[in-house]
């Protein structure tokens, strides 16, 4: 318990440690608190950037807008200017007309009517002028004459009353009809006109007034004035010359408002912009010519275009702006917004990813903790398993011991068999407990196969005995057949091998209600065998002797017909052939070149089979074919998966053929090592060591209609050393025994035994049988009646009585057949049963020990008398020749060279001279002797090579404590191994096997 606690503590400590060290924080993990802040900063940054973007794009937009405005404004200005200058030119032309036709012609070619008509007809040329008129220059002295001539008084413009006296007048004499109201008005009376006139005659060019409200209309307008000269002017006239030459003035009123309106109406996009035209002659006080200054419009953009109306004195400009504010630019807004959104998303994704990483890392750490906990739990589980299995094993040992005692008592063969079975089952149970432990080992991948010598046949017998009761109860035939080619002893892991077979047979027994279970072991020949079967086909199938459709063990159909008699026979015949060859080779064949032997094991049953759809998951752990399976048959479904693991570890593979309602055949291969040296190589027909040898040379006839079954029976009898002949029916048997000398076995006329299958006997009928028997009796007159043995799977009491009556008084051998059981029964039958099978309880190891130690001379050194006696007894038991010494010194004396001891068992704790010291002295002695011998050998060239063998007597320590340090010390002082003190055969065997191979 303390130990366990400690383990838990250590596990917990380890856990803490891991927690501390394994927290390898990544950058993100370390800065997890900063993550939200980073996100916020990022979002602000993104907002800022998108604002910048917006501004940039907006600026671009504005610039474009400005550009558009400018181009529109310029266009308008240019057009206005063009149209204006066209009109001005025309007025100019009119002025020249007037001067030409009014003054140069005498008399004048123009009068009011002409002028009016002309101007009206050419009005299309001056679309911008509301009307034109001509005013004559009249000086004050000429006023009366003028008034008289024209018949009216010169009037002022404002009040339309006769003009006061002035220096000069400029009454309108010709006028277009549209401005006919101007006639007789003195232009000089108007402020703007007067200025204009003065400037015009001074410059001789077109002159414009500033904007003012026109007479007759309320539109703003300007007046254009051209001077008309009476005479041609010199090329560069002075001001006075000009004034003197001035005859009058042509004037026209530009209705700027309608003009511009007109103009704008022609252009596209006039709705969008507001146009203002200013007279900026006086730059500090711009006068509006067109448009309303206070119009609500977008004041953000304006464009000014200079206008040149041909009057250098006056400056005009056009100011354009958008009518409406710039529409909100959705594209820009959207772009910026999308940018912002994308930025936020990006930030959020990164944040999410970071959070995810944090979470995953947290989870990872948590998982690690859990893993450590789970591992601790696993350790605890293993400990628990170990403890529990140990606790179970202890009472099992008691049971085992008691059964061993029971077996020593005087028992009948049946009781003996039962007790034996119980003991075997107990052993199997212990094995199973170990298997539980191993299961965990397999899961952990820590299972290792051991490599020891074992006997496949006896293992199969064990397995068979385990299931014999069950199969008998169910009425299933259970049989084992091991090919002669399979070596008796192989190197491998018997426990695992047994485990696999137990599992497979166990499954078969579980799922089979009628028919048979047949276990076959062959060496790997099945591959070329298939071809053989195909070649020969089913030639034999015609001679069905007993009407059974299938030539299997029980006559039931099996899933894999490779195991039927056709195949089986080939195997057998091949075996005989090869065994003959083997015999010819005088046993030298035993050192076959192949180091490994591949064993094929087939377990065939006629059970319910595996449903097709479940076949591919048979080897999956905890999977059963059907959920109802576990209900009906129990089991966990782990067995096959373990078997598969084990088979694969043995270098083989497992597979199966199964047909529902027909049966399953599992077969697996396993690679075992050949024994380097068979300890029984000198025995020609190897017999199982634990089988009695008293039957050797007996002759038996097996009467059985089913060849496979007969082969199995023969196999078991052969193992007992009985010579067997098979007869398919009684007649043949009689013939066989009757024919004298004609068979290959010349002396077969006198069989000691006749084994008859129950089925056959039942089918033959009582009466017929008795006759046969009588006949037989007569044939074999002089000889004693052969013992009759009935073979049966199950038998009722009535049948049993019948048998007795029919002559089977001797015994009934119940199936499944096992060599040892058959032997027990035959002992009873033949009356040699009283010879107790000595050392039956001895296991295989003992036999090997016996063979290893037989005749060997062994020295036992121990100061303890009891121990000495026990050790000596144990070694003597195995046939060794034992001598004892009670101290190290005595041993030393006995081992003085040359001696003839083969080995020495040395106690370690002895007074005076302990085991280590004694061993060291012995080794010293030996090395000296060896040196001497080597010297001799080298001096005598060609000396006896056999003498080269060095002196080295194997010394094995006997010690009660088998801790490692002791073992190391043993080796250091020159010992070869150790055995733990109360002699256990297994230990002894393992230690001894090293030296006596």
């Amino acid at each position, binding site marked *: 318990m303390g130990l366990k606690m400690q383990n838990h503590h250590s596990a917990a400590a380890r856990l803490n440690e891991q927690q501390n060290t394994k927290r390898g924080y990544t950058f993100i993990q370390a800065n997890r608190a900063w993550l939200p802040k980073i996100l916020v900063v990022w979002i602000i940054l993104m907002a800022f950037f998108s604002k910048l973007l917006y501004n940039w794009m907006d600026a671009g937009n504005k610039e474009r807008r400005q550009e558009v405005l400018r181009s529109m404004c310029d266009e308008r200005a240019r057009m206005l200017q063009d149209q204006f200058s066209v009109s001005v030119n025309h007025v100019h032309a009119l002025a020249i007309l007037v001067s030409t036709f009014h003054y140069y012609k005498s008399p004048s070619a123009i009068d009011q009517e002409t002028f009016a008509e002309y101007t009206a007809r050419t009005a299309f040329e001056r679309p911008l002028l509301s009307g034109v008129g001509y005013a004559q220059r009249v000086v004050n002295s000429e006023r009366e004459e003028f008034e008289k001539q024209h018949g009216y008084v010169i009037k002022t413009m404002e009040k339309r009353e006769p003009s006061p006296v002035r220096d000069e007048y400029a009454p309108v004499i010709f006028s277009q009809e549209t401005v006919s109201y101007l006639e007789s008005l003195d232009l000089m009376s108007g402020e703007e006109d007067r200025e204009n006139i003065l400037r015009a005659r001074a410059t001789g060019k077109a002159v414009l007034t500033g904007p003012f409200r026109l007479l007759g209309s309320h539109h703003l307008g300007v007046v254009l004035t051209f001077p008309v000269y009476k005479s041609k002017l010199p090329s560069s006239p002075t001001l006075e010359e000009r004034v003197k030459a001035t005859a009058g003035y042509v004037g026209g009123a530009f209705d700027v408002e309608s003009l511009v309106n007109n103009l704008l109406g022609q252009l596209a996009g006039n709705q969008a912009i507001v146009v203002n035209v200013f007279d900026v002659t006086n730059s500090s006080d711009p006068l509006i010519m067109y448009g309303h200054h206070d119009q609500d419009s977008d004041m953000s953009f304006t464009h000014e275009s200079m206008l040149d109306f041909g009057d250098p004195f006056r400056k005009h400009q056009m100011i354009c702006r958008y009518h409406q504010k710039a529409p909100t630019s959705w594209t820009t807004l959207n772009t910026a917004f999308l940018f912002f959104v994308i930025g936020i998303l990006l930030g959020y994704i990164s944040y999410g990813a970071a959070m995810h990483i944090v979470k995953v890392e947290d989870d990872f750490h948590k998982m690690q903790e859990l893993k450590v906990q789970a591992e601790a739990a696993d350790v605890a589980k293993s400990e628990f398993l170990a403890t529990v299995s140990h606790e179970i094993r202890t009472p099992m*040992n*008691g049971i085992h*011991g*008691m059964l*061993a*005692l*029971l077996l*020593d*008592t*005087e028992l009948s063969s049946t009781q003996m068999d039962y007790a034996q079975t119980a003991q075997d089952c107990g052993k199997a149970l212990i094995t199973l407990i170990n298997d539980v432990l191993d299961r965990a080992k397999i899961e952990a991948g820590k299972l290792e196969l051991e490599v020891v010598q074992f006997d496949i046949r006896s293992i199969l017998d064990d397995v068979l005995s385990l299931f014999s009761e069950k199969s008998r109860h169910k009425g299933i035939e259970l049989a084992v057949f091991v090919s002669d080619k399979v070596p008796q002893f192989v190197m491998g892991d018997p426990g695992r091998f047994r485990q696999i077979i137990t599992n497979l047979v166990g499954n078969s027994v579980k799922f089979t209600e009628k028919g048979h279970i047949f276990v076959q072991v062959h060496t790997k020949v099945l591959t070329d065998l298939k071809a053989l079967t195909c070649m020969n086909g089913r030639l034999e199938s015609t001679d069905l002797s007993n009407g059974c459709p299938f030539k299997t063990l029980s006559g039931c159909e099996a899933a894999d017909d490779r195991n039927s008699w056709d195949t089986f026979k080939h195997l057998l015949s091949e075996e005989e052939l090869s065994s003959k060859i083997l015999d010819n080779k005088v046993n030298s064949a035993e050192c076959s070149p192949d180091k490994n032997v591949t064993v094929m094991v087939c377990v065939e049953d006629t059970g319910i089979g595996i449903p097709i759809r479940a076949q591919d998951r048979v080897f999956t752990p905890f999977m059963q074919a059907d959920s109802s399976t576990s209900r009906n048959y129990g089991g966990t479904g782990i067995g096959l998966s373990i078997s598969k693991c084990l088979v694969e570890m043995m270098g083989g593979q497992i597979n199966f053929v199964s047909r529902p309602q027909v049966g399953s055949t599992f077969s697996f291969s396993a690679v075992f090592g050949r024994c380097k040296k068979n300890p029984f190589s000198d025995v020609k027909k190897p017999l199982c060591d634990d089988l009695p040898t008293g039957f050797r040379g007996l002759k038996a006839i097996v009467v059985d209609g089913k060849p496979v079954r007969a082969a199995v029976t023969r196999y078991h009898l052969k193992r007992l050393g009985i010579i067997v002949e098979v007869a398919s029916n009684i007649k043949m048997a009689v013939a066989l025994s009757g024919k004298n000398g004609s068979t290959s076995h010349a002396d077969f006329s006198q069989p000691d035994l006749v084994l008859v299958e129950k089925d056959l006997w039942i089918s033959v009928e009582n009466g017929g049988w008795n006759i046969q028997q009588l006949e037989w009796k007569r044939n074999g007159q002089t000889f004693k009646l052969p013992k009759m043995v009935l073979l049966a799977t199950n038998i009722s009491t009535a049948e049993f009585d019948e048998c007795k009556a029919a002559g089977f008084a001797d015994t009934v051998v119940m199936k499944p057949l096992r060599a040892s059981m058959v032997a027990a029964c035959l002992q009873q039958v033949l*009356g040699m*049963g*009283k010879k107790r099978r*000595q*050392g039956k*309880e*001895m296991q295989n190891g003992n036999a090997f020990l016996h063979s290893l130690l037989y005749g060997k001379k062994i020295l036992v050194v121990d*100061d*303890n*008398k*009891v*121990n000495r*006696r*026990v050790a000596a*007894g*144990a070694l*003597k*038991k195995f046939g060794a020749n034992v001598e004892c010494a009670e101290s190290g010194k005595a041993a030393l004396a006995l081992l003085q060279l040359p001696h003839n001891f083969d080995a020495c068992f040395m*106690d370690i*704790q002895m*007074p005076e001279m302990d085991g280590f010291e004694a061993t060291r002295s012995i080794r010293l002695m030996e090395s000296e002797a060896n040196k001497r011998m080597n010297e001799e050998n080298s001096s005598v060239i060609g000396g006896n090579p056999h003498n080269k063998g060095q002196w080295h007597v194997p010394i094995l320590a006997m010690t*009660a404590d088998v801790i490692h340090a002791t073992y190391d010390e043993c080796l250091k002082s020159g010992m070869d191994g150790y055995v733990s*003190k*109360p*002699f*256990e*055969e297994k230990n002894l065997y393992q230690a001894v096997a090293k030296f006596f191979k």
Partner: protein
Amino acid sequence: MLGFGVERLRADMNRLLALLFHQGVLDEQFLQLQQLQDETSPNFVSEVVNIYFHESEKLLRNLRGLLLDREFSDYKKMGIHINQFMGSSSSIGAKRIRNICVAFRAASEQNNRAGCLRALELLEHEYCYLKNKFHELFQMEQQRLLAAGARYPVQN
């Protein structure tokens, strides 16, 4: 009648052995010992056990002498004796005696005289018990052999 006795004696013997096993007086080693007995050495077990008793008595005497000595100090020598006792006990499978030996040895290693004395007393008690039981067992064995010898030939 005698034949019947054989069976009964055998059963009694087995019962006694079972009891000893159950009490933990003996362990599997004794079974191993029994297995060593066969036709070639029919009295092997009793022989060994007799040697054991002989040796043990000597050892017990020595131990008691050592412990009762006034100026006792030779724990080392005592350890050797105990080891011997332990070795032979485990050889015949006397489990309880062996366990007491372990305790005894521990006490002697700590130079705990009182503990040693207690252990010695226990040891003597156990030894007596074992001896009695073995005595009983061998007596039965003897009787059984006698009975078996006088067995009527059983028809086969």
